[in-house]
């Protein structure tokens, strides 16, 4: 490799936010046609660095060098002109518009003053054909899956002739299949000379797809390595600065009383389709009951119905001995429920509120946080300081708005709040999504500790590894029904995989057995 191969270089970039040094003399380079993975703890400064390269933030000092020339990027407009595209974890698409309309937004192709949507559609078709991205230019974005929306974002950058693409945690919300597809697309792009910066917290992905890996820690570059020269534990300790135990350590469960019983639950989704179709199960105190399944098989609606956020059509929910079927959230919470919601920015946080206020979102009205309807701010702040310390939330103070926290640290605010309340049942939907390995280790330990204190845990996760590592019993959901409930120590990845694909073990046995 020669220096000529370097297409983009960040040179000694420094960026302060009030109370935080987000980037401290960060240097990183990107070669033509490579996938350069960026790893680092929550709050290490990855998104900040990318936003600087993309022109959303101005660095305090340091340069961005493009094809050997130092350039100044004032806005995304400049970076797009320079051939840099970014797919934010926050997609910037308008659901009511079609794919083509979204793609031309901000760069409208007109024909004598009239929008030329046909030309755009045609070009989108060409691009998606060329790169093997399945994107229908006429589909409404709101009806696409997350994975498909992401492909739209990628096509959008290609449409603007990007030859450098930044992907910020693209796989956090993708199914394993969608992730595979994304990797295939990424390889196709690099084969055609596009360079990619890829941010993720999943070490396996990094090792599978990256050409080079740069690890950031506390605003600095901790090192750049090749996948061949490293492995998961090494990467983890590079990130966190200590050894990380990647497996969960726990004693066998000692389940006691039933804390949740669900009988013949039926739930409709937003389009009035029945997405939970007669589900029954029970969770005992002192056990972790995992729900595995490919995303979109009703897990979201199940959690929403159980926590009172979504009406149920039929069935019974008994929580800690009380019938809470069809009750609103408050009485359900008060029977002893903690809930880590799947959509953290929609349900879990008030982004404009301080970290401290968010940490009492569900119990602000109870002693000691309120007395006689009056908030006790000192107690609220005290609680926040304790949780920030215990859960290692990276924030300059309890008083900053949560919107200023990095994505993973926002998640930690919710997890800290929900895991610290005295409850009987924890419903955790994707509790570690977007978290770094060190935080995952800690939160897994906390969930197990909760179980050992006698809390019942309903764990819903798209990460099969997480389900298998934590659960004592595993239910597999497929098309709104529970295929089977198995003991965790008897389950294998393969057996769960078959169930997740809708194949019952008896069927497989039948299929495998020679016909008489």
């Amino acid at each position, binding site marked *: 490799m020669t220096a000529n191969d370097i297409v983009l270089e960040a040179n000694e970039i420094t960026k302060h936010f009030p109370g935080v040094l987000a980037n401290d003399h960060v240097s990183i380079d990107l070669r033509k046609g490579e996938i350069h993975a960026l790893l680092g703890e929550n709050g290490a400064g990855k998104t900040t660095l990318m936003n600087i390269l993309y022109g959303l933030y101005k660095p305090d000092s340091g340069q961005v060098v493009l094809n050997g020339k130092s350039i100044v990027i004032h806005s995304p407009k400049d970076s797009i002109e320079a051939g840099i595209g970014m797919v934010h974890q*926050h*997609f910037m698409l308008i659901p009511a518009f079609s794919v083509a309309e979204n793609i031309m937004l901000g760069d409208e192709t007109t024909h004598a003053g009239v929008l030329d949507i046909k030309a755009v559609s045609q070009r989108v078709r060409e691009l998606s054909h060329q790169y093997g991205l399945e994107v229908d230019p006429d589909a409404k974005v709101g009806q696409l899956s*997350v994975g498909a929306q992401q492909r739209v974002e990628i096509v959008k950058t290609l449409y603007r002739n990007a030859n450098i693409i930044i992907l910020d*945690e693209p796989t956090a919300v993708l199914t394993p299949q969608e992730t595979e597809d994304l990797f295939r697309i990424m390889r196709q792009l690099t084969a055609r000379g596009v360079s990619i910066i890829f*941010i993720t917290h999943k070490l396996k992905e990094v090792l599978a797809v990256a050409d080079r890996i740069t690890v950031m820690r506390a605003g600095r570059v901790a090192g750049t390595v090749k996948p061949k020269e490293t492995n998961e534990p090494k990467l983890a300790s590079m990130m966190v600065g200590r050894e990380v135990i990647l497996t969960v350590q726990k004693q066998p469960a000692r389940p006691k009383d039933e804390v949740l019983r669900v009988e013949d639950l039926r739930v409709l989704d937003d389009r009035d389709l029945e997405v939970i179709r007669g589900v029954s199960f029970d969770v005992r105190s002192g056990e972790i009951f995992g729900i595995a399944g490919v995303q979109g098989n009703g897990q979201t609606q199940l959690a929403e119905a159980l926590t009172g956020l979504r009406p149920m059509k039929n069935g019974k929910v008994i929580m800690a001995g009380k019938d809470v079927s069809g009750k609103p959230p408050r009485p359900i919470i008060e029977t002893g429920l903690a809930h880590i919601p799947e959509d953290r920015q929609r349900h879990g*946080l008030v982004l404009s*509120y301080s970290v401290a206020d968010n940490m009492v*979102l569900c119990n*602000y*009205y109870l002693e000691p946080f309120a007395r006689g309807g009056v908030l006790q701010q000192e107690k609220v702040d005290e609680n926040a300081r304790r949780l920030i310390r215990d859960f290692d939330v990276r924030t300059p103070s309890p008083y900053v708005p949560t919107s200023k926290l990095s994505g993973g640290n926002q998640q930690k605010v919710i997890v800290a709040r929900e895991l610290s309340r005295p409850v009987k049942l924890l419903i955790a939907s994707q509790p570690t999504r977007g978290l770094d390995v060190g935080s995952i280790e800690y939160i897994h330990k906390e969930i197990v500790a909760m179980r050992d204190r006698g809390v019942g845990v309903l764990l819903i996760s798209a990460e099969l590894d997480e389900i298998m590592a934590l659960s004592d019993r595993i239910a597999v959901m497929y098309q709104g029904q529970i295929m089977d409930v198995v003991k965790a120590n008897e389950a294998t990845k393969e057996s769960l995989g078959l169930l997740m694909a809708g194949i019952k073990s008896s069927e497989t046995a039948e299929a495998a057995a020679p016909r008489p």
Partner: protein
Amino acid sequence: MQSTADKGFIRRLGQLLNPLLVPFLAIVTAVILGGIIIKVVGGDPIAAYKGLVQGAFGSPSALSETAVWSTPYIFAGLAVALGFKGGLFNIGAEGQIAFGAVAAALIGYALPGWLHTSIPPYIHIPLAVGAGILAGAIWGGIPGALKAYTGGHEVINTIMMNYIALNITSYLLNGPMRDPNPLNLSARTPEIAVSARIPPIFDIPGMRVHWGFVLALLMAVVVWWLLWKTTLGFEIRTVGANPDAAKYAGINVKWIITLTMALSGALAGLAGAIEVTALNYRHELGFSTGYGFDAIAIALLGKNNPYGIILAAILFGAMRNGATRMQFLTQIPIDIISVIQALILLFVAADAIIRFIYRIRAREERVVLTRGWGG
């Protein structure tokens, strides 16, 4: 050393004043533009503004009148701001003020007759004012409940409620509640009983400033306390900032929406009640026109902060009050004040209003950008 300490101080001062920056610049710009307009129509801007300031602050009685003008502005501004904090756009303050005034006037003049007895002021005043508050609360609560339980948009509904309130008021003042005095030619109620009157602060002729002004200042403190120090305020702000998270947190979103609108209406009703019980001693058609709409400007100029609203309301009160003297001294029509107020509003709010309305729409029709996974 000295200079870094200075810098720190300036930065902190800057942070403190930052929220005031936009309103301040808006006022300055509007005043400059207003001056240009005065110049263009052939007046002397310096003399005009001098007259304005003199008329508003130049003498004890000028100050008193400025306070009198500011009083309903403070109440109504607080009403609109409380709605905004709960994510609700109360355009209905005008109708809520009118009903507050009608109810207070009715209790003020008719209650002694109904009871066939005189009532001591410490009972009569609270009853009259309370009736005004209740009327406003109901008139605000209805569109609140419609929003919460049927999804009917509060902007549309409060506007309609304004028309209903103003027409009913007009009917009442021309009909059942009309002052029966044969000399009376206007649509107005009889004078309220002396026992229902809130006294002026000073017993000096020409000094009309009354205890209602002090109540307005107190109310700003109460609203601030309610919003930021109580669990109810936490609930109102949470519903305003993120209704989905509010629901998740166990807050009864529908009830809070209804209650917020009722409280907002109560404050507007209070504005009307105080105008009747402390100033005019009756309700007359046309007394309160425009307060409810100016209140939107005041809430925006005050950044929905109760203390900001006091400042904004006094500014508006001073401009209204000083305008007469300005016209007297320079023959520049009073309307220029409306132009300047409109300009201030334009500069402060153009962006805020658009965003606000967009946000409401976004929540209901879900025309939001797709939500990803905040990296």
